[in-house]
């Protein structure tokens, strides 16, 4: 059982049984423990702490470590930063135990045990095995300070290598870096507002200003961004995020603003300013080289960039995976010989094979995925189809060509199994052309092979 401040005052303690607690305080309000919700809240708080420093680490179950090296002066010093954080958390109804220390471990230990300096910490802060802790206590070494003054090799000999290592981590002799939740972006610009912005339009104007600043920074680096993250920090701690990805590196503010507007227009739930945004940050986590551009005389690159801009706009609105191109692959399995990739993914496929001159198209214009089951009547079980039924309609085969036999990829499978497909191009009495296959060789592979419709010809 965990308890809050009020319960502590009423004489309850963590670890007590619920029945005992209810006996002491009949009006007790109990909530079942929800670790997932706790973790989500911690992540949400960590998002909000991004406003102070990009180096935020969540330490479940209830710790947050902020590396404020070089950031504190922006908030008027370390103490002012801590005050600001504690005030914000108090507004959310959360009690914080802040601690400042040179290393993450020390800060966590100080916060947990509410001590002022490392030497005063009880040895429980070392989180040693119970036997070792008991032995230290029996030796009269009740605080970290006392343990640290002992002869280290002797301690190591008695309690193992772990103890000196833990002490070194606490004192800062071993540097333990904070692992940030997200890597710092190469280009970041942000703006703080003394009075929170409560209008979405005002926030958009601020974003536009940031985009222009980021564009200048990118120009200096001769780079363009492939991905742009906007984080809108609400004064109550919530962080709204907008992400725009582009097919080609971009730094033109006009294009970016248009993309971001598309993205906002496509949001399922609109941006809620709530009590207002007091910090807006634009990050460019993915950049790529982009030289200064000059329009070509023939206008070739202009047309390319125009299509690129259209693709980016459609991608921002519909989702980048929805704008695709066709890529050929080197495979004889029909459905694996061509696939779709998001436009902008730099993968070059194999070359497209083309039928010989004079030959009619051998492959259909559209392919069913998965192939559709059909009922087929054939003269002989391993012969061409005579008549088939698809979507409750009967088609009489007038012309056919085949079979084109396509074997399974037996070399990819341990058992060498897999059914051979016999493909037929057929035309029905209405002139419609279909691509059918029989799945499995009659007799040798399957007693009663099934038929499938795999594609339609133009």
């Amino acid at each position, binding site marked *: 059982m965990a308890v809050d401040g009020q319960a502590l005052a009423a004489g309850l303690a963590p670890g007590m049984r619920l029945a005992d607690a209810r006996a002491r305080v009949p009006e007790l309000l109990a909530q079942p423990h929800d670790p997932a919700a706790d973790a989500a809240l911690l992540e949400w708080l960590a998002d909000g702490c991004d406003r102070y420093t990009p180096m935020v680490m969540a330490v479940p179950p209830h710790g947050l470590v902020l590396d404020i090296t070089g950031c504190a002066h922006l908030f008027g010093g370390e103490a002012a930063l801590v005050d600001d954080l504690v005030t914000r958390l108090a507004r959310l109804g959360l009690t914080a135990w802040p601690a400042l220390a040179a290393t993450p471990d020390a800060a966590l230990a100080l916060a947990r045990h509410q001590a002022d300096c490392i030497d005063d910490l009880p040895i429980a802060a070392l989180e040693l095995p119970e036997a070792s802790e008991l032995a230290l206590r029996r030796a009269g070494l009740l605080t970290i300070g006392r343990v640290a003054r002992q002869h280290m090799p002797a301690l190591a000999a008695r309690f193992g290598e772990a103890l000196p290592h833990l002490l070194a981590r606490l004192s800062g002799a071993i540097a333990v870096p904070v692992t940030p939740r997200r890597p710092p972006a190469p280009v970041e610009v942000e703006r703080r507002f003394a009075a929170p912005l409560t209008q979405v339009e005002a926030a958009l104007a601020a974003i536009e200003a940031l985009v222009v600043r980021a564009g200048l920074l990118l120009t200096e680096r001769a780079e363009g961004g492939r991905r742009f993250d906007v984080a809108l920090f609400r004064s109550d701690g919530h962080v709204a995020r907008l992400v725009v990805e582009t097919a080609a590196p971009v730094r033109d503010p006009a294009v970016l603003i*248009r993309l971001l507007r598309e993205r906002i227009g496509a949001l399922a739930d609109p941006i809620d300013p709530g009590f207002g945004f007091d910090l807006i940050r634009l990050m460019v986590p993915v950049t790529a080289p982009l030289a200064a551009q000059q329009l070509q005389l023939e206008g070739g690159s202009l047309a390319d960039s125009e299509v690129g801009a*259209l693709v980016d706009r459609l991608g921002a609105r519909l989702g980048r995976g929805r704008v695709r191109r066709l890529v050929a692959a080197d495979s004889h399995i029909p459905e694996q010989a*061509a696939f*779709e990739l998001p436009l902008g993914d730099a993968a070059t496929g194999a070359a497209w094979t083309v039928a010989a001159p004079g030959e*009619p198209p051998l492959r*259909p214009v559209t392919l069913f995925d998965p192939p559709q089951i059909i009922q087929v009547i054939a003269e002989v079980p391993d012969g061409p189809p005579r008549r088939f039924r698809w979507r409750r309609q009967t088609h009489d085969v007038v012309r056919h060509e085949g079979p084109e036999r396509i074997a399974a990829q037996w070399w990819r499978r341990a058992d060498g199994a897999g059914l051979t497909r016999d493909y037929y191009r057929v035309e029905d009495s*209405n002139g419609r052309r279909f691509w059918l296959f029989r799945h499995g060789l009659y007799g040798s592979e399957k007693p009663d092979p099934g038929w499938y419709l795999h594609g339609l010809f*133009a």
Partner: protein
Amino acid sequence: MTSRPASLPALAGLAPPPVPAAGARLSLGLDAVDARLGGGFEVAALHELYAQGEGDAASVAGFALLLALRCGRPGPILWLREDRAARYDRPYGLGLADLGLDPARLVLVQAPDTLALLRAGAEAVGCAALAAVLLEPFGKAPAFDLTASRRLMLAAARSGVLTLALRSGDPVPSAAQSRWHVAAAASLTPGANAPSSMSGASAPGAPVFAVTLLRHRSGIGGFATRLEWDRDSASFTAPRSGPAPAAVPLRAAAAPESGRRHAA
């Protein structure tokens, strides 16, 4: 919806001057048919291709792609489809290459619903760097109405992009330049290896389309013809044994919409 010029002064400067493409025509490569159409399809316009029957969707898509191939404009061909259609079948690159179209020219856009498809389509048609835009709404798509078609028509006239609507069901009022029924037709040229099987049936040949002009804004009378696609010359040819384009009684072709013309 088509543009937001007020908020984008910087972009306006980048756009190339509008090309006066009003006169550009797409010739089918068949003199008799081209002459009837006054030189061919208007490129900078919206044309509607209706599937004649339920199973003619692939023919419509093929015919639209071939028109886009023949429109003479450089640049990518954008094909907009809906999620619901993509759940069943997808464009197949090898088959497109077999028609003579470079699959690398094709940009596939998948929209979640008809409204999103129309919005994306209107934006795409406004992009003069594209060769053609194919819009394929799923099913009858009542959202693709007179207003939507007029918007597309205007955008196409401005940018010069060939715009083709791939539709199914009964024709509905629209502002499109022309409206066609497209269906598959029996092979005429036998395949190269015609006597291919023991039963003596010949192989399916080159694609043949039975197209019927239902309505044209400049008053061209309805007619029906068959077009065979010849990949090697990248052109439509008259079926070798088929009949010359014969006028169908206009009344029959226009009858289904005579009552709706007032609404349009």
